[in-house]
């Protein structure tokens, strides 16, 4: 079994496309719709990494990341932003919050798995 990704994404179409791309690259993927849902399920899911959208209802990406960092259990969990927020200051802010990587949408579905692996390998 490959690495387990817990992915928070509120757009079902992107869930579908990203899920196919990541599974094809050998990852196990669990999809959740919001940051809140991610926090609820992370204890059970015990993912190896988290892919996080920025703009989500209830709890957005940055706030979700902050919450993960607050919790002893998830403090060191690798988190990668995958978001349409593409301006320089936004990327900078995401990384400053403690994300390990930042993937800008639209991503490349054929190499998405490789990008994630590359970020983890850093």
């Amino acid at each position, binding site marked *: 079994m490959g690495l387990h990704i817990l992915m928070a994404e509120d757009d079902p179409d992107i869930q579908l496309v990203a899920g196919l791309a990541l599974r094809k690259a050998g990852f196990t993927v669990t999809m959740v719709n919001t940051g809140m849902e991610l926090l609820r399920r992370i204890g059970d899911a015990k993912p190896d990494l988290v892919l996080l959208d920025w703009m989500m209802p209830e709890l957005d990406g940055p706030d979700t990341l902050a919450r993960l960092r607050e919790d002893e259990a998830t403090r060191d969990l690798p988190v990668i932003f995958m978001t349409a927020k593409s*301006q320089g200051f936004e990327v900078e802010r995401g990384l400053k919050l403690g994300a390990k990587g930042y993937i800008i949408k639209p991503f490349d579905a054929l190499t998405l798995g490789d990008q994630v692996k590359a970020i983890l390998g850093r």
Partner: protein
Amino acid sequence: MTPATRGGVGAAARRLAFGALALVVCAAAAAGQPATPPATSTEAPPLPPRLVYGGDRAFPPFEYLDDNGQARGFNVELVRALAERLGVRIDVELRAWPETVARFDRHEVDLVSMAYSDLRAERYALLVPRTWTLDQAVVFRPGRRTYPNRLDLLQSETVAVEDLSVMQVLLDGLPEVQRPALLAFESQRAALDALVNGQATAVVGNSLTLGYWARQAGVERLVSVPVKSVAYHLTTQKDRAAAFARLADALAAFRDSDGIDRLVERHLVVPTRDPEWHQYASYLGISALVAAVLLVGAVGWNRSLSRQVERRTAELRDSEERYRDLFEHANDLIQSMDPGGRYLFVNRSWLRTLGYDEEEVRGMTFFDVVHPDSLQHCQRLFARVHAGEQIGPVRADFVSKAGRRITVEGSVSVKAVDGRIVATRAIFHDVTARQMAEDALRASEARSRSLIHNMLGGLITLDERGSIETINASGERIFGYEPGELVGQHVSVLIPETLRASSPTFLQEAFREAIGRVTEWEGRRKSGRVFPIELSFFEFHDGSGRHFAGSIRDISERREVDRLKNEFVSTVSHELRTPLTSIKGAMQLLLHDESLAGAGELKQLVAVALNNTERLIRIVNDMLDVAKIEAGKLNLQRRRTAVGDLVRTSVQNVEQIARGAGVGLVADVADGLPAVDVDPDRMVQALVNLLSNALKFAPEGSDVTIAARRAAGGGVTLSVSDRGPGIPAGEVSRLFEKFQQLDRGGGRRMYGTGLGLPITRGLVEQHGGRIDVSSAPGEGTTFRITLAGA
């Protein structure tokens, strides 16, 4: 009249000499005056053996009857001397002057002495050369404000004058506006009495004669103003001029042999010791004594006297010229005025600066050149000076002939004789240029101050240690302080405490970084609030050392605008990128991934790409609509439209979505509604937006209702209601803002652009309608559009 003075014999002699000198000078001054050309001929006819000279019995010292009725005076002796030379008999008959003139005109008198006037020159034959020169004067009682010094300035006076005298002739000849009221008397003595007793305000006549009569009458103080010198001629009738040619020749010969000068010395001396000369007798006695002394001294004495006079004249001339030269060439304006303010003397610089010529100045007073703004000030100064006050440097504004304002600065002094002020002298420096420079500097300073005070940016100056020296109004406002509150405080009060604490050398670093550059910092308001500022410093030095000036702008607002702009770009970018992500990903997988399991997944990916393409189109359309609405370029194709049609079309548009969501659609249109004047496509778009919105949040199995009712004002109200979760009161205001997709938990996930409600409001408002919303959490939401009837 010569002021009464007392002195020793030497002084008296000196004055005597100067008196003679003065007469000589006057004569020289009058030499240019025109006279009737001599009616001479080489073969002059013989004179009749007996002639009558007619004269004025009261015209001392020229011709008069003494206490014993004897004819005396300069003219009498002259005529007798001529008679002797010519070997003819000339009887001297002195009467009242008008009588003599009448007799002369009747040819009962052959010869008279007359002062020159143009009229007389036309009527009579004035023999050349002249016999002497008469100084004419206007005599006033003292205590006046001004003493006019020209005949044409006497128009407001009542002037006493001897009948048929040259002055009467001249005054009569003045243009009416300049002519004074004239009182004619048979003698100058009577004219003088008229002045003394108040009948006249001035008397005009011969200065020697008037002076003589004044002493006779015991009048102590009068002011005599010389006005004119006129040539004095032996005169005959025109028709007898040829017959008198020999007389004229004899006169010329007599003058050439200094005969006239001897007569001058005998008769025309100016008395200098008036008190003793009150009596005519004593005057005569002393005259005789002087004459005797002169005669006894004979030619030698005369020579010596004239040498003395010459030497003193030369000395005086030298010294006068030296000072005159000094005055004339001084760059300063020098003026001397009489107590009435009338100019006695002004130098070249004065004339040049004020643009007058000497002739014009003669009739002017100080107050003629004072600028109206300065007049009161100058009158006060003048009064103070005359009250004997010593005044320091004075400043005044003059006005040149051309109307230019001239600012002068200088000093004033008075000349007093026997405690009486006779002249006021002033030396002024033209400071107009300096004044203008000062004014310009002041104006420029005021301008700068106003500019600095009113500029929107803050301006602060600090000393080297960071103490605030000045700060403008904007600076105080930016930091929230009261006017004047910051001056003297240390600049660190304007810096957030965190920065102050973090580095004791913060200020130095801040200065270094901000000098000559625009930098962004955080400032601290009086309230303690931290806000962003833009700061640039420059360094300057003045007499008191090194300073810093800082230009400060509060950039809170600009930061907020920047933030909103970034947010907008970010949102738009996000909205476009999200569907593109699905489309791109789906297409990549479809094209390259052969491992995709079955037809189910393939179809699913195609549907994703298609849906997101449509979503992208909606977003682009919405954004174009927003842009059009904001630019006011929405083109409405209005027409009369039935409300029922609008509702029906809108419902048809969303029927499929409603079915998919399991939500019922209820259309409730009241009967008899008026038609509305709208662009039906745009109004349907607005209603569809509201319906789509309602369908997103309506719980499955509930109804969304669209209703049309008559509005209170006569129009129509269209409402769209759902039974969804409702909107919290605090968020209602954000509903119509762009890209504000309210987070309404439990709502069905829909692909909203966040532009639907802003566009709806824009469409309604462009139609002249109104949109509002009522909602309560848990009870659903109702949007209402109110339109005017068509």
